[in-house]
């Protein structure tokens, strides 16, 4: 952190992270696409409340929406009523978001190459979600949480927007 770009400490909320690392901003909901909009709006507002500009918060919301859609469609194969948890961990320098589920897991970030023309030529209706997450977030990771659940972790730093991306 460079000293000439101080983090505005009044934008942090350390109370939203607990000593044991568990987040205190958590949403639990059943796998159903009807909740996607609610989740997106919640993510947007949490990003705003924890110090991101409106345009940045929109991008974070966009990534959370894509990640949650993947959990419903790929991890749970569209099955409704399965459990999804989202933990938001706002810190001084970043907002970390974990999306947890008990469905099929991804071990690592897939799709190294992204070729929109190829997707179009193949008449594909998808294949953009992971790329979007990578583009708009600073970190994307798949793995297992301590609880044994599978998770997708999204990280966004606060300083990025100060530098003009």
């Amino acid at each position: 952190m460079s000293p000439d770009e101080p983090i505005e400490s009044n934008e942090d909320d350390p109370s939203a992270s607990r000593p044991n690392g568990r987040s205190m901003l958590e949403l639990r909901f059943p796998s159903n696409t009807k909740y996607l909009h609610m989740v997106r709006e919640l993510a947007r507002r949490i990003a705003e409340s924890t110090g991101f500009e409106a345009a940045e918060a929109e991008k974070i919301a966009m990534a959370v929406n894509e990640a949650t859609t993947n959990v419903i469609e790929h991890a749970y194969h569209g099955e409704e009523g399965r459990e999804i948890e989202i933990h938001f961990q706002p810190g001084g320098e970043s907002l970390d978001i974990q999306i947890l589920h008990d469905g099929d897991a991804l071990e690592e970030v897939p799709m190294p190459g992204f070729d929109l023309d190829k997707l179009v030529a193949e008449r594909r209706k998808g294949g953009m979600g992971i790329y979007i997450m990578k583009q708009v977030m600073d970190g994307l990771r798949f793995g297992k949480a301590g609880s044994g659940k599978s998770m997708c972790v999204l990280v966004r730093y606060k300083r990025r927007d100060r530098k003009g991306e």
Partner: protein
Amino acid sequence: MADLSMASERRGDVVVIYPRGFINAHTVRQFEQELERAMESGRNRIVINGSGLSYIASAGLGAIMGHIEDVRSQGGDIRLTDLNETVLNILNVLGFNHICRVFDSEQEAVTSYSEAASND
């Protein structure tokens, strides 16, 4: 409660589709059906007017992506207009503007079809 409602209007041989609400994995079938309805009735010159669209997720862009080659092979296209910042944002992130032409006004989007009508 209305997550998405669809309307469409004919402007000559162009059909303008007006999605109202948001397009995500929950609402995308409605949007896709409107595209398919236009195509099935032989209208392949499509304009999507996004003035009522709050945002579109990759699922919604997928519906465009999945059909654009087919309408093009029929001498048509899918063109976009009146998009808000949030929608332009996701297009930029993906480079979707290389795939789809984006206009500032419905008028421009509609008349763009007659300009290049020679190969129709």
